[in-house]
């Protein structure tokens, strides 16, 4: 166990330079913008003096290195500036839009697992059956289905005729919130589940062919018990790491689907900010997403060690 603790510590240490690099990339977003950022914030009608004053106040008249250091310092203190469009503090913008995004992410991951695990199990136990082939084709086809289009189709052909789900927006109480994330989460898991299921299927096949499963079967273990304690446990860890690799893809899906379903979370706020060139908001939300991806990968690595003792370093 101490070896594992050391591994977790080592992974945490590795994360530090990565986070620093992530902040640098996010910082550079404002540097590639053509034109004077202070002018963009204040708009075309502001006076030259006001632009120069804001430029000085934001430190845009100093060297890039000093600006980056200031950016880091502000970040540590949680000072993210104010939105150019709404004059709201950026930290507040993030706080007030976090909940819908978390709901959507949680629902998508859950739905992906609920679809992928049974699919993988059926495909692995009926090898070369029709489902096995269908899964292979599906995992390619779904990559090319635009998620926003799938979302719109679900709105038009499921939400509108049945009335079971809201066509837009995010509910107030937990029950209606759940109903508002079902369709976008389904659209997202539709593109993710076949990819995860294929990976899960191949590791399940490997486990099913192994000697210890043969031994378990010989001693009379079968069905749900065999699946849960022998197969699923041993084949989950590659799927978990694949899900972590896909975390960035998932977050982009969340951005797109929030915009499609008009759910006012971080994603749709990012899109609005991007269209309106609200640089500080763009910067902050990108940073939140990037840190989330780094964190998810860290957790996945640690979780992999917990799921599968074989990957723990000695």
């Amino acid at each position, binding site marked *: 166990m101490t070896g594992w603790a050391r591994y977790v510590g080592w992974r945490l240490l590795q994360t530090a330079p990565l986070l620093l690099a992530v902040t640098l990339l996010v910082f550079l977003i404002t540097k590639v913008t053509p034109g004077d950022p202070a002018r963009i914030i204040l708009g075309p009608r502001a006076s030259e003096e006001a632009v120069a004053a804001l430029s000085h106040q934001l430190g845009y008249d100093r060297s890039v290195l000093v600006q980056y250091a200031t950016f880091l310092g502000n970040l540590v203190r949680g000072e993210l500036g104010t939105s150019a469009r709404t004059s709201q503090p950026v930290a507040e913008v993030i706080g007030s839009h976090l909940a819908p995004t978390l709901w959507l992410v949680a629902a998508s991951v859950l739905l992906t697992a609920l679809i992928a695990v049974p699919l993988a199990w059926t495909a692995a136990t009926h090898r070369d059956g029709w489902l096995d082939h269908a899964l292979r084709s599906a995992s390619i086809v779904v990559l090319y289905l635009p998620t926003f289009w799938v979302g719109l189709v679900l709105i038009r052909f499921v939400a509108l005729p049945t009335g079971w789900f809201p066509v837009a927006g995010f509910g107030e109480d937990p029950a209606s919130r759940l109903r508002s994330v079902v369709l976008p989460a389904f659209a997202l898991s539709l*593109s993710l589940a076949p990819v995860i299921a294929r990976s899960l299927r191949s590791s399940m096949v490997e486990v099913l062919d192994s000697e210890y499963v043969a031994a378990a079967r010989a001693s009379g273990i079968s069905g749900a018990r065999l699946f849960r304690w022998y197969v699923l446990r041993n084949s989950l860890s590659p799927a978990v790491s694949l899900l972590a690799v*896909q975390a960035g*893809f998932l977050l982009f899906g969340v951005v797109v689907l929030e915009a499609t379903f008009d759910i006012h979370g971080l994603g749709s706020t990012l899109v609005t900010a991007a269209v309106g060139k609200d640089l500080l908001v*763009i910067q902050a939300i990108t940073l939140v997403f990037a840190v989330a991806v780094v964190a998810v990968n860290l957790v996945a690595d640690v979780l992999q060690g917990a799921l599968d003792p074989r990957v723990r370093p000695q």
Partner: protein
Amino acid sequence: MTAAVVARPAAASRVRRPGKLAVGLGIVGLFVFVALLAPVIAPADPLAQDLLHRLANPSASHLLGTDALGRDVFSRLLYAARVDLRVGVLCALLPMLIGTALGAFAGFFGGVVDGVVSRVIELVQSFPVLVFFLALLAAIGGSVGWGPFGPGEIPVIVVFAVVGWVVYARLVRGEVIRVRDLEYVQAARGAGLSRWRVLTRHVLPNVLNQTIVYVVLDVGLAILALATLSFLGLGIPSPIPEWGTMIAESRDRFAQQWWLIVTPGLAIALLGIGLALIGDALDDRLKRR
């Protein structure tokens, strides 16, 4: 591009191999044909408005009806293939060229170049690349057309080139390291050929297979990303016919004129599937050899 998990062929699918390539080439060939000949085969000008006949249902004169400005949707759908294919191909080819060069350099020469390239690869891998696309596009964005490029195209292509090369660099770097120490490369080196010549004549030709397979798949993914960015209002601006833009334009007419939205999405998916079939068939062939 991050979503691409290049599928390995299952044993059973090898039986149907010849079909895949033909179907894929057929689909992609159709799109290329449409893109090249759009001005000849399109029944109407994709930008011409006819407000008296707006939101018309599909008919003989307007195969897919008209949109909210009375433009012929079928013609717009055909013309959109031009923009999507051109930008999609560039958004895959440029990263491929940059990534292959950097990856080969890093893998073959090692040292500082390799250190830097490897760190950047690691960084981009742990980054929500598509979200970064969006942010970067917003920062650069808002371009007018230039030369052969229409409005909005250059920022998209630049962003893809800046971020997309990493996938190729990783792929090529790994392959170069694999063959670098093989006998035939050592023999070429021992024969006194310059390192540059060994790299370009003996190493690269043997590592490009996977890259070619991937670039075919990547064109489809780039078109998908382009359409998504356009749908969000950050890619190709209206009124230029582009599949994602067309969907965004007709979004509030979806309850009544659903085909305005369904058809561009089908076009994106069909083209992507065609490219995936070609990529998959090539992958099978390369593995068999």
